[in-house]
């Protein structure tokens, strides 16, 4: 699903944010991306949803070399990628259902269908009863679930989540993580950037660890959990 070969990302005048990254994430995998703040986790995710381009190296998404992709082709690739952010990025001027349906509006889906599919997705994240309220009236956990519903409403092949539980208390964190594992169980490839070692210990998934822009570990299962808890 995602392959990177000797990827470096640098901004003019600054030291590189990512150095010689090599990785291969297969279709249907659940991967944690971890490391301390400033390690380059968000930048790596941005390379995955094409908000940034690599300075050097090759990035392949679903087998397509993104370096060869024209700017005009990026939106079409993004339609297969759902993204969840720590700050939710919900629109306060729209209702919860409208926020979820935003993704389908972009695809030119008829209005009735947008509403139906949005409600269905809200039911899946347990928020159908909040469909017509403003996101501002929701708790942090609820807002993140709306954000997740928006990312999933068009059944993307890949879900990227950047610190999705960063603003949530432990109970809400588990709630969101359970939703993410459920999505993964249905076949969606999921990449979660987090610096929360307890999550990695609890879910025991493949874990990539970044430090100062370099990939320092790539472990799976219990070994990943042990390694990450030691380095945390």
């Amino acid at each position: 699903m995602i392959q990177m070969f000797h990827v470096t990302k640098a901004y003019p005048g600054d030291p590189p944010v990512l150095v010689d990254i090599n990785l291969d994430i297969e279709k249907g995998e659940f991967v944690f991306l971890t490391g301390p703040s400033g390690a380059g986790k968000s930048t790596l995710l941005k390379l995955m949803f094409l908000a940034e381009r690599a300075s050097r190296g090759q990035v392949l998404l679903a087998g397509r070399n993104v370096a060869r992709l024209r700017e005009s082709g990026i939106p079409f690739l993004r339609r297969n990628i759902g993204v969840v952010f720590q700050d939710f990025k919900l629109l306060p001027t729209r209702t919860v259902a409208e926020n979820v349906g935003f993704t389908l509006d972009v695809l030119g889906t008829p209005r009735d269908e947008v509403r139906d599919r949005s409600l269905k997705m809200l039911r899946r994240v347990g928020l159908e009863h909040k469909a017509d309220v403003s996101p501002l009236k929701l708790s942090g956990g609820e807002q993140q679930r709306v954000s997740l519903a928006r990312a999933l409403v068009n059944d993307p092949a890949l879900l990227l989540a950047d610190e999705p539980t960063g603003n949530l208390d432990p109970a809400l964190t588990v709630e969101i993580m359970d939703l993410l594992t459920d999505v993964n169980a249905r076949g969606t490839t999921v990449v979660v950037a987090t610096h929360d070692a307890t999550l990695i210990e609890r879910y025991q998934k493949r874990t990539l660890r970044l430090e100062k822009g370099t990939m320092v570990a790539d472990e799976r299962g219990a070994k990943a959990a042990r390694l990450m808890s030691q380095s945390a």
Partner: protein
Amino acid sequence: MSAPAKLAYFVRTAVGSIVRSPFVHVIAVASLMLSLVGFGVARIARTQLDALVDSLGGEVELTVYLTEDAAPERVTELELALTQRTGGQVHRVSPAEALGRLVTQLGEDGKGLTELSDNPLPWSLEVRLPKAARDAQALADLAKRTRALPFVTGVDYGEEALERLTLIARALEIASLIVFSLVFLTAVIVVSATLQLAIFARREEIEIQKLVGATDRFVRVPFLLEGLLQGVIAAGLALAAVYGLVRWLQSGDGGLLAFARLDGKLLVDWPRLAGELFGIGCGLGLIGSFIAVRRFTRV
């Protein structure tokens, strides 16, 4: 992907944006409307001026003087040739008719002319020209070609007055072009500025749209529609304002503006004026929004 669904979404978004921030849109519409009212008034003034020029232009005649030895059949040939060449009406003036006119023009002083034994005046042809041939250059060319014809001794067409009239009309045209270019440029800047504000207010929305796979075109079309809607609304209001102004002038209560009336009635081609106002309004709205979206939708 459904095109009608997308179009419906674009229209909803554009109208929603206008409804959500009416103040900035009112400024843009007012600015556009004032420019269009100015244009509409100038257009009507120009129509009245054209009518005036036409009425003066109706007097434009080419007088062709012939040699004394031109036989009547030669005069007939020339009359036919000039009719074909100019597409106008040719009137043959005999020496006797010419002398009669001169005597009438001179009044008391011309009485002596009636006692002449020989009429010294030649045959002449008066050509009343069609509208298309009334500009100074076309007349000069026609006069030159006519002078080269046999039996023609001279051609007169009041060239000085015509050139002056043409110059005035051209100066007015250039002045209005400059003034309206500036006025329309200002309107475009205002429309562009209001849409930049609208884009700024919706920057979060644009960012999310792009994240979920919206193309640049998808992001930009609602803003272009907003500009277009501003143009349509402004044109409708401008047309209503110009109509009200014309009605007021024609009602006779126009006070100082009453001089603008021509025979008590203003000549206005309403369908054409409406077409121009809506065309220019939509064009300015679209140009303003196009400038704004080109520069400010790159998130």
